């Protein structure tokens, strides 16, 4: 186990039938770190996010969160331990209001007694994401980019120790893309630990100090964006050579 790591995944394996979607991957993330996770389609990035958030259980290997072994625990336990996540395609509570989307995760932690404080926190998060005007709208009425922001807000309401962001820039209008990048930068500045998965190399490379590249379920490069993007293995993986 890497000492001081907040997220420590070691030798992770996840098979779907004969396919090894994640194949012996090891990854350590320090508290407050913002790392980018990139790789071609089918490289296992989303499966890794699902493993690190408890949506899937690994077939082999261990996942530790701040030293606590998390293998086999349900996704709501991961969330309770401070793992917040977003999905590749936003999965909001569509027929609930924007405000209710934010209240739901927070209410799991503090109960009904602290509802006033939770609503205050939700108002802060909505203001931070520039969604305050939409609080009483149903989530399904939001644009794609706004839905991505709301998902980010929902994860923030867990007061997470680590945020797993699965393709937060995918399919987002360029106007909103800058907004999301700014919000992620600000969260990182505030000390959030973030693992960011995306195809948008420009957006990811400009945001993170460390880039991890996956191909065929394995980590093939890990370093600064400049070093990693010059790596022959990475170029091969992306060009299919």
């Amino acid at each position, binding site marked *: 186990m890497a000492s001081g790591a907040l997220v420590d995944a070691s030798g992770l394996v996840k098979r779907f039938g004969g396919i090894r979607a994640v194949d012996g991957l090891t990854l350590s993330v320090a508290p407050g770190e913002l790392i980018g996770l990139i790789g071609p389609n089918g490289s296992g990035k989303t499966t890794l996010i699902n493993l690190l958030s408890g949506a899937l259980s690994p077939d082999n290997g261990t996942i530790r969160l701040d030293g606590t072994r998390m293998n086999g625990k*349900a996704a709501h336990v991961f969330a309770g331990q401070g793992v917040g996540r977003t999905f590749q395609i936003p*999965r909001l509570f*569509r027929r609930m209001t924007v405000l*209710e989307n934010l209240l739901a995760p927070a209410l*799991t932690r503090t109960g009904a007694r602290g509802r006033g404080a939770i609503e205050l926190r939700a108002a802060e998060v909505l203001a931070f994401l520039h969604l305050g005007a939409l609080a009483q709208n149903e989530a399904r009425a939001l*644009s794609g980019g706004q839905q991505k922001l709301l998902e980010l807000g929902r994860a923030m*309401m867990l007061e997470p120790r680590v945020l797993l962001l699965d393709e937060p820039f995918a399919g987002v209008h360029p106007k*909103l893309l800058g907004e999301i990048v700014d919000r992620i930068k600000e969260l990182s500045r505030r000390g959030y630990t973030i693992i960011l998965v995306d195809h948008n190399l420009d957006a990811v490379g400009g945001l993170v100090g460390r880039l991890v590249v996956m191909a065929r379920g394995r980590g093939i490069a890990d370093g600064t964006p400049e070093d990693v993007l010059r790596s022959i293995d990475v170029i091969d993986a992306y060009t299919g050579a």
Partner: protein
Amino acid sequence: MGQGARSRAWWLAPILAALVLPPLLDSYWLHVVSVSWYYALLAASWVLLAGYAGQFSFAHMAFAAIGGYTSGLLAANLHVPPPLGILCGILAAAIVGAAVGWLCLRLRGPYLSLFTLAFALIFQLFLIAEYQFTRGSLGLSVPALFGGNSDIPYYYTGFGLLLASLAIMHAVLRSRVGIFLRATREDEDAAEASGIDTSRYKILVFTLTSAIAGLAGGFYGHFVGILTPNLVTIPEMGLVVAMAVVGGVESLPGAVIGAVFVYVLSELLRDTGQMRFVILGLVIMLTQRFAQRGLVTLALAGAGRLLRRSVPAVPEPEAAIPLAEREKHVG
């Protein structure tokens, strides 16, 4: 009078109307409306289970039968007083409901519906097959809850049980559990990722709604005096679903009004024979086509708009910003 007071008055009006109604009804219609409280209990609890929590179960009538038969059998074999028997029926239905909820944890959508349908059919066959115990298709005679020939005590008891059940379900929906149930309905994986223990709340809602169905079954058995396996047939379940659909599958009062409306309508159409099912089917189809949130929900929304128009609106500047303007805020 403020908007809140008007809103309360809006709900008090039908309650008061129901309280003063019996002297205005003849014995036949008093009986009809009293039976409709049974259906209203079932429709409202099914709405909580299926409409709010997204657990589209076809086993609801089976839980009503569990409640009814438990109370009926205790009375017939052990001379247990009906009120205590009904309590035992509620408990039995809740326990079986929790077990079914637990078994259904990993089932979603049509798989859950098929599982619960199979459970209901098996339970119906059990009631028929164990005729030495349940009297099978001949029916189990159940002692009356009250002496005398009047249905008035049943009318008020049924209405009281309905109001009490609605108050409990309303309180659940207003609490954080209500938000968790709706979140689970919307997206179970996202709810889990938000820290909601979806298994726990699914079992909870199955237990609660089964208990209310058991209460309905117990009341019904001691009211009509006989229980048969027909209680658990698919048409009976379909009737409850129809009541919920007509009233609004996401509205407890809608389900109650839908239940009374559909049951009274079916009685009004009784002289038309089988045609009444055709007419009821058309009502449901038209509701689904033109008012998916239910006729009652539609009417209540219209009444709400009228209410707001008659009261000076409180400015809500943020909510009133058009979507195009909001995009500018974000973009």
